């Protein structure tokens, strides 16, 4: 008996919520990044779950969902690379990665 897709989506929502809380709560930029990755994964999970659902109801193009996840995965990897590069660069000049200290754009 297959697990209904909605359960996976609910799981995805919980993971997304966790990641969002992490983004807001954590003070180190690296940990914020980790939380963002968590959120991305939650989204990917939701897409795959709905792709499976679409396949179940007879859409012949359901695989497009999985193709999209592939693309998202690649983009997330590139984003991590560049983001961590920025982080390293900032660290080199500021010696801190505390997001509260890095508040340059201030009124």
């Amino acid at each position: 008996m297959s697990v209904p897709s909605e359960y996976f989506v609910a799981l995805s929502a919980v993971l997304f919520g966790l990641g969002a809380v992490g983004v807001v709560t954590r003070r180190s930029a690296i940990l914020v990044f980790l939380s963002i990755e968590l959120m991305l994964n939650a989204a990917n999970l939701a897409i795959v779950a709905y792709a499976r659902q679409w396949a179940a109801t007879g859409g012949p193009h359901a695989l497009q969902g999985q193709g999209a996840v592939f693309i998202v995965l690649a983009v997330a990897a590139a984003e991590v690379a560049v983001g961590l590069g920025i982080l390293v660069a900032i660290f080199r000049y500021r010696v801190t990665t505390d997001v509260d200290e890095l508040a340059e754009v201030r009124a």
Partner: protein
Amino acid sequence: MIGFLIVAALAVAGGALVITARQPVHAALGLVGTLLSVAVAYVMLDAHFLAAIQVIVYAGAVMVLFLFVIMLLNVEQQRPAARWPWLRWAAYASGLVGAVAVAATALSERRPAPDPAAVAAVLQGGSAERVGTVLFSEYLLAFHLVAVLLLTGVVAAVSLVQRAGEQPGGEAVAAFEEEPTVRASEPA
């Protein structure tokens, strides 16, 4: 069903670790756990290729990169004191509300459980052949653009960490130099 519950529990546990661990390495390992759980979920959802990619790329490459940077920057332990004490609880509340709302929305639309045979007929297990077919037909442009994006990312990452004047070739490059824009030509 049991499988799903185990996967869900592991994923949520990993996520909780990410957002609460005091040591950054613990948080990273928590995320690894979540990623692996999600890969198992992919298998349960007939997306085998994606599960493999998830393990190889995400858990294998991205998380390793994260761990390298954590160790390089010697990220200190999280200080418990926060600038705005109310922030934590506001975040918890918002996150809870949002997650519950979305989950409830999803769960309230009851649909018949998917027939494995029908799913298998379409997805064919989400094999590399099937996903590859999609990538090279409907998502061809996206595929090429992602290639360009990865190249761009590589160049950006390298130029970001170069100190000024250290570029091989003699050109002085500032740390925050703009990424060179490379236009991909349309494949015929």
